[in-house]
């Protein structure tokens, strides 16, 4: 693979998590025969053969399948077998908590299901972000006196569910204006919340937080309740009914749950999980995206009553710089959103 491109891509992934470069980049997409696409807060850019970011796709560097395979091998540290189980699910999580989605030809095994993915033709690298303070405007809604309310964060992909739950966990664990510090256990099936690498969390998830890394959610919740005695359990991306069974088990034992799922409204949750089941969640936080920014659409009770709604022109918008939330509230000046940042040797101003 072109060394310049490899170095630039690896720099994006391994750079200081709080640098403006990393903050600006949301996704790196590689597709066989197409230019490398970099999704940033300011839109889609492409990479030329020298690793510079450009607007024109035609001048972008086109990668082939062997280059994609080589890059994937670098991401896996030449040890793809170590990610065998994850590859079967269509992704790997690499150092830093970045998730790499894999496209290619699926090899089936009629006993195990998906055996592996061969002829990898596309990679989608989602850059993990840690933004401290991003949960500030919502913390008041997840406490009922001293108790943490069972809360479900619902949003379509790429709206910042994981970033939000990570900061919520940190604040619940460390203690905040609404409650003292609690023992929290993260069931981090995809190693995205705590971005654990070699057993150590790369992200700040709080001083009273235990992490069960790469553990299936339904098993992890039971293990955590029995062995780690948490006050709060945090799980990312509820997927199937076994997860809901484990959540029922947890709530019946007095453990609070903070979870996320893909969707657009609490109705999606009800359709997916609520056939003859008790509703375990008392709060629903609905997120969305507006002009490329993470916004909160509303916070709802379990009976559908809206606690707080953010109208079309009054969305709560998070403004962050250098990895820290510097402002929350109504929409601010564009250049405050990202500040100046540099990518591939080019300096851009504002978002």
């Amino acid at each position, binding site marked *: 693979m072109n060394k310049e491109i490899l170095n630039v891509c690896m720099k994006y992934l391994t750079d200081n998590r709080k640098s403006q470069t990393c903050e600006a980049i949301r996704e790196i997409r590689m597709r066989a025969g197409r230019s490398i696409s970099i999704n940033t807060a300011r839109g889609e850019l492409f990479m030329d053969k020298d690793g510079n970011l450009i607007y024109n796709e035609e001048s972008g560097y086109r990668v082939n399948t062997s280059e994609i395979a080589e890059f994937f091998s670098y991401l896996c*540290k030449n040890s793809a*077998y170590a990610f065998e189980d994850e590859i079967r699910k269509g992704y790997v999580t690499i150092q830093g908590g970045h998730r790499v989605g894999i496209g290619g030809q699926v090899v089936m095994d009629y006993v195990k299901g998906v055996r592996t993915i061969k002829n990898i033709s596309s990679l989608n690298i989602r850059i993990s972000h840690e933004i401290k303070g991003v949960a500030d405007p919502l913390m008041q809604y997840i406490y009922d006196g001293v108790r943490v309310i069972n809360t479900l964060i619902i949003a379509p992909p790429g709206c910042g569910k994981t970033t939000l739950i990570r900061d919520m966990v940190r604040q619940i664990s460390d203690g905040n204006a609404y409650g003292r510090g609690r023992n929290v256990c993260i069931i981090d099936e995809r190693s995205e919340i705590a971005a654990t690498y070699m057993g150590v969390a790369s992200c700040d998830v709080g001083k009273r937080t235990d992490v069960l890394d790469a553990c299936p959610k339904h098993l992890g919740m039971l293990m955590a309740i029995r062995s780690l005695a948490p006050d709060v359990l945090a799980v990312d991306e509820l997927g199937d009914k076994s997860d809901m069974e484990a959540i029922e088990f947890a709530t019946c034992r007095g453990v609070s749950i903070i979870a996320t799922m893909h969707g657009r409204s609490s109705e999606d949750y009800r359709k997916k999980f609520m056939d003859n089941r008790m509703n375990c969640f008392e709060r629903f936080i609905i997120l969305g995206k507006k002009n490329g920014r993470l916004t909160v659409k509303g916070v709802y009770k379990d009976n559908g009553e809206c606690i707080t709604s953010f109208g079309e022109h009054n969305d709560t918008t998070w403004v962050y710089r250098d990895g820290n939330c510097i402002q929350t509230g109504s929409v601010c000046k564009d250049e405050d959103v990202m500040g100046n940042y540099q990518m591939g040797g080019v300096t851009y101003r504002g978002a």
Partner: protein
Amino acid sequence: MLWEIIKWEELLTEELKYRQDTLARCCKNTSLYTKEPVNSMLAEIWEVCEEKSNANFNEVFKTAVKKHLKGSGLKMKEIDIIANLFSDTNFYDKEMQINSIRYNTMLLKNVCAEIQKDVNEKARLALYLGVMSGIVTIILLI
């Protein structure tokens, strides 16, 4: 030395089976149970891979093998077999990765068997020569 490498490859196989860690990490874990110069070779591989995020494990491994095993009495052919342990790998499947290491171990064991056979033949030749020279000496004395 070859037996030390074979022992390490067998340890590596068990480590992969048990922990399913990355190759660099497995090198570090197994280095504790090996003797010099294999020990320092594995430690160096781990350090380089940790230091450089975009290091290619195969290249790091080859460089370290050639550097540390050069003066160990092994022939170039044998060093090449060891250096190529991970050259055509990066399997997405643990079993295949283990099989490729086992294949390399088998090659090294074959080399050991050949060396052993060679040594045995040389020993037998030396024995014959000793006996013959003894007989000749006795005849001359008589």
